[in-house]
């Protein structure tokens, strides 16, 4: 047989996935090069949700920027506010009362849980398991109700203010939060039974989408995506802000850096966040929730950078002031933007069916990528 020696005709195919694909978490277009079923390259195309966030900030007063930050990473709005406010406070040298710092920690950690719950639900969905979505949203709903009571809104909270937070916690906040944490504990067990421990889930996530520690560091990954690769880097521990150094919690790390490890890291992080919230509620001091803030906010000339450990990674905010009532420049360092570039690294050489799992595993929010 001579034909066997002849090379088979091979051709790479370029397809567009998105921007209106249900699994791309927003409007992401990925230009995927395929060879048969195998992914040979990924080129994410971004910008569909671009709203000129950074430019708009230059047109608003320092306080007016806060509600806009809510709209970058819209499933973790409180953390965004925190990053911006911390940067401006650093610039102005504002004192924040201790109670406000504790409240900020509590809210940021609850926000992390809410965000991870949403990730868990949608990730199950990505893998074809719809039920976990409903379960995760059941728990998240309780949490959103707590946020609603405290801040007055369900998604765009506009709660953290320069020098503190807007208002004190409602009377039954502690009871409700503790009840939620108990519910979450049960919920997490259920999630493990329902999805994480499921054999299909393991087949679809273990050993896939591997990101080595060197790659993760080289690409500037952060958050659970980095820690799943075995690098124990968490801003709450390594560069503590607010009062995080007073709490006792672990930083979960993975070993292999595959999709499974990233999932487990996030699941464990929820437990750790619950621990922090419990401790913070216990040690919550009395006092004011806003410090002394000048009536007209005019930070002195200069610049400041503040970074917080957002649910998705290091969320940084860089502000420049020219001494006026409006920021001269606001720069947003979003973890999702960095992680999106990892797609090519982790999905190359794998099957196109696992591509969706890969997108889900780095937990991107396009509102934050494009902003």
């Amino acid at each position: 047989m001579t034909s066997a020696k002849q090379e088979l005709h091979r051709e790479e195919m370029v397809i567009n996935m998105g921007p209106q694909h249900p699994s791309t978490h927003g409007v992401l277009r990925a230009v995927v090069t395929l060879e048969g079923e195998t992914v040979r390259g990924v080129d994410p195309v971004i910008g569909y949700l671009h709203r000129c966030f950074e430019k708009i900030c230059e047109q608003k007063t320092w306080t007016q920027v806060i509600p806009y930050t809510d709209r970058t990473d819209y499933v973790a709005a409180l953390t965004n506010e925190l990053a911006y406010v911390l940067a401006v406070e650093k610039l102005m040298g504002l004192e924040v009362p201790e109670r406000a710092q504790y409240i900020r920690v509590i809210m940021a950690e609850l926000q992390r849980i809410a965000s991870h719950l949403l990730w868990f639900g949608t990730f199950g969905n990505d893998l074809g398991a719809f039920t976990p979505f409903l379960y995760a949203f059941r728990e998240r709903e309780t949490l959103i109700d707590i946020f609603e009571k405290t801040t007055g809104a369900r998604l765009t909270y506009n709660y953290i203010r320069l020098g503190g937070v807007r208002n004190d916690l409602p009377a039954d906040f502690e009871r409700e939060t503790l009840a939620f944490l108990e519910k979450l504990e049960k919920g997490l067990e259920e999630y493990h039974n329902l999805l994480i421990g499921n054999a299909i889930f393991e087949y679809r996530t273990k050993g896939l989408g591997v990101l080595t520690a060197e790659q993760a560091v080289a690409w500037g990954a952060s958050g659970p995506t980095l820690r799943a690769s075995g690098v124990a880097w968490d801003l709450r521990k390594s560069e503590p802000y607010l009062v995080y150094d007073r709490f006792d919690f672990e930083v979960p790390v993975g070993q292999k850096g595959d999709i499974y490890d990233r999932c487990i890291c996030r699941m464990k992080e929820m437990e750790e966040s619950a621990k922090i919230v419990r401790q913070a509620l216990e040690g919550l001091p009395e006092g004011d929730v806003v410090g002394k803030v000048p009536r007209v906010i005019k930070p002195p000339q200069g610049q400041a950078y503040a970074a917080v450990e957002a649910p998705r990674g290091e969320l940084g905010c860089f502000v420049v002031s020219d001494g006026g009532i409006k920021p001269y420049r606001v720069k947003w360092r979003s973890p999702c933007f960095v992680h999106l570039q990892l797609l090519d690294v982790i999905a190359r050489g794998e099957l196109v069916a696992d591509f969706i799992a890969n997108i889900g595993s780095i937990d991107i929010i396009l509102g934050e990528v494009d902003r």
Partner: protein
Amino acid sequence: MSYVRNVANVVATLLVGLRVTLREWFSRSITLQYPEQRWELPRGYRGHPVLLSDEEGKTKCTACGLCVRACPTDVITVKGAKGEDGKRVATEWVLDMSRCIQCNLCVEACKFDALAMSDRYELACYRREDLLYDMDTLLELGRGDGVAAITVGDKL
């Protein structure tokens, strides 16, 4: 053989999942039959700003313009004139609800207790012009239930 075992394993784990489904089947339903049933909104829910009135039913707004300057989306229009007693009062107060982001900053800016947030959330309408709320509408809404003014430093 290992293939068969794999399949059996998958079926077994699926059944574990279905046990949960069955349990939920017999537990109490939490669905709310909107619009017949409605949920209770917490005090301070941010629907949209409304105007508060004094005992005589007149607006407390002095047309000072602080809220106009505080609003990030520029949706408030206020005009004022000197009243009979010589004090300034608002004669026109228009909120363009099509662009309001319900951020509460105007309420926090007002020094005359003239503004509050209503918990109205059914804001849909047929014409865009209907989204311009004038002073009378806002005063009327401000007299209703579920109105609260929460400003910086408040206890809930």
